[in-house]
């Protein structure tokens, strides 16, 4: 096993290189900066494009431009920088060009701090700017998974001509873990896609736009986008489970919290509590069907996030009234550790036993 120790941010960068990214545009922001710095070193070595943009706004629009040429390209940032990219993301989605974005989340709102957080769920999973669409959102829990997801993200982006966002947090970006790096993909050769802007040589000129002055045509675009999203929903759902087979209680958590919850599950099991973990890997498309199926078999759900309850709403939509849904959220850069999760779990189990009608009760501290 050829594993080497990689820092999350750098591993993401290296995986992107191996996946064939040909251009990187970015702007420094903690806790994501090592990704940019790694690209600054390696892209020129490989004869590819690295450019530090003057801002996140410029970065996303440079990415937009490169994407229009059918070239695999990406940017990365952290929460406030992602807020600045919302307009650009909406343009990219409407234009149907492939783009990969990494968001290594930090504490908010506002300037907040640089500690890990999951406060971007809403803005990344629900909206990403004005209009109707969702990006494909991948939430790795380990550095290896970050690498693996990054490695396929360009394929997804090109397959659907869509935005793929890798959503991590400061922990993932800063930690080191042993990683098996995938091989370098052959990136040269191959015609640019049939929609790409390359110069109208010997063919009619092509246009990439997000402007549709007629309401009918803009609705048609939207229906097409919705149809595409439906296809993605059908084909691209990813999730992971731990000990769910006989679980009576279920933790739902993503990313770093997902892996931490795994420890909590193992510890709880040693005390005889039949707990399992459901970890969505694609936050959009959210693994609704898969979670739904599990709900039939458990007595209560605990959602754990590093926010005030954002994915929680998606879980509630799936669970409906069938079992109680509890929530444990830590914010501002505090990471919920197994020691926090276990009491919340016990509360859930206790409450479930005592009064069954109870629905949601935040257990923040």
């Amino acid at each position, binding site marked *: 096993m050829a594993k080497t120790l990689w820092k999350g941010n750098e591993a993401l960068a290296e995986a992107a290189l191996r996946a064939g990214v040909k251009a990187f545009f970015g702007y420094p922001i903690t806790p994501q900066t090592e990704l940019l710095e790694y690209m600054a070193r390696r892209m020129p070595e490989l004869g590819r494009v690295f450019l530090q943009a003057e801002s996140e706004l*410029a970065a996303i629009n*440079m990415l937009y431009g490169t994407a229009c040429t059918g*070239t695999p390209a990406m940017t990365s940032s952290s929460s406030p920088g992602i807020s600045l990219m919302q307009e650009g993301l909406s343009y990219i989605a409407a234009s149907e060009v492939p783009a990969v974005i990494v968001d290594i989340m930090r504490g908010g709102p506002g300037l907040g701090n640089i500690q890990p957080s999951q406060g971007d769920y809403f803005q990344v999973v629900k909206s990403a700017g004005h209009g109707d669409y969702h990006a494909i959102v991948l939430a790795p829990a380990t550095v290896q998974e970050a690498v693996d997801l990054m490695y396929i993200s360009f394929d997804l982006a090109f397959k659907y001509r869509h935005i793929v966002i890798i959503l991590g947090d400061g922990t993932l970006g800063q930690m080191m873990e042993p990683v098996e790096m995938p091989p370098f993909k052959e990136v040269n050769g191959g015609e640019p896609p049939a929609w790409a*802007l*390359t*110069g109208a040589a010997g063919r009619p000129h092509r*246009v990439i*736009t997000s402007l549709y002055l007629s309401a009918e045509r803009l609705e048609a675009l939207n229906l097409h986008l919705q149809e595409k999203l439906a296809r993605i929903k059908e084909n691209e759902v990813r999730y992971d489970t731990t000990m769910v087979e006989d679980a009576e209680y279920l933790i739902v958590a993503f990313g770093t919290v997902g892996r931490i919850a795994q420890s909590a599950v193992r510890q709880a099991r040693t005390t005889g509590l039949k707990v399992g973990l459901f970890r969505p890997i694609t936050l959009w498309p959210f693994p609704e069907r898969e979670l739904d199926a599990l709900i039939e078999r458990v007595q209560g759900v605990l959602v754990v996030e590093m926010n005030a309850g954002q994915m929680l709403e998606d879980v509630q939509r799936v669970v409906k009234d069938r079992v109680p849904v509890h929530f444990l959220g830590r914010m501002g850069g505090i990471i919920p550790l197994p020691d926090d999760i276990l009491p919340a779990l016990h509360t859930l189990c206790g409450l479930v036993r005592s009064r069954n009608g109870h629905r949601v009760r935040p257990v923040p501290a």
Partner: protein
Amino acid sequence: MAIAELTPPQIASRPEVALAAMQVVYKRPEALTEAYTHYCPGCSHGVIHRLIAEVIDELGIRERTIAVAPVGCAVLAYEYFTVDAAEAAHGRAPAMATGIKRVLPDRIVFTYQGDGDLASIGTNEIVHACARGELLTVIFVNNSLYGMTGGQMAPTTLPGQVTTSSPYGRDIRQQGWPLHITEMLAMMPGVAYAARRSTHAPAEIRKAKKAIELAFRAQIEGLGLGIVEILSSCPTNWGLSPMEALAFVRDKMVPVYPLGDFKVHQALAARA
């Protein structure tokens, strides 16, 4: 049948034969599509489009040119050129063009931007494209206001000029002085060519074309960014007839925005 024998009525009746034999002094450039433009009658955007198309034709770069259209009255510019084109977000054309040019360095990339687009919301992107010396050509159409949204004040609006958002006339103490952004951009070493031209008379239009050519040559020859600011009329929002609007450009705008070259890279100087 010799041409001299043709009487004009004959020409009129069989123009295809007769005209073919004549010397074509001016014809529609290949770089323009057949589409009718949506611009108001007399709007200079159309003139500027044509000049760009003529230059593209003459430089023989149509098949390797990529245009970036702005948000503004020229938002549909991509429908009027027979080159590949992308539509940028408001103000971000230079960033988008940078993204294109960096991965396709042998293509010719130009942006077409209004004064609201380039000199207001998009100042950051144009400044830094210039600072980096991106090999881009920028056609900057200054009509002293926001045409598309109905005539609001722009940073380029003249002192005292009434617009829908400066209803009492632009007050320089409240709203500042007209922005001479091209002069500012010209200061940067990354800019190889920077000039201001106008559309208010045939001779000016010819000079504007020459400047557009140099702004493309700056890119083609790898010298740096080339930018031409072109004073342009907006009869509709000025509430003037097309001819009055050109007079407004000549009499009101040119005194505030002097025409001329602000930066000519020495490698271009011979051609200027």
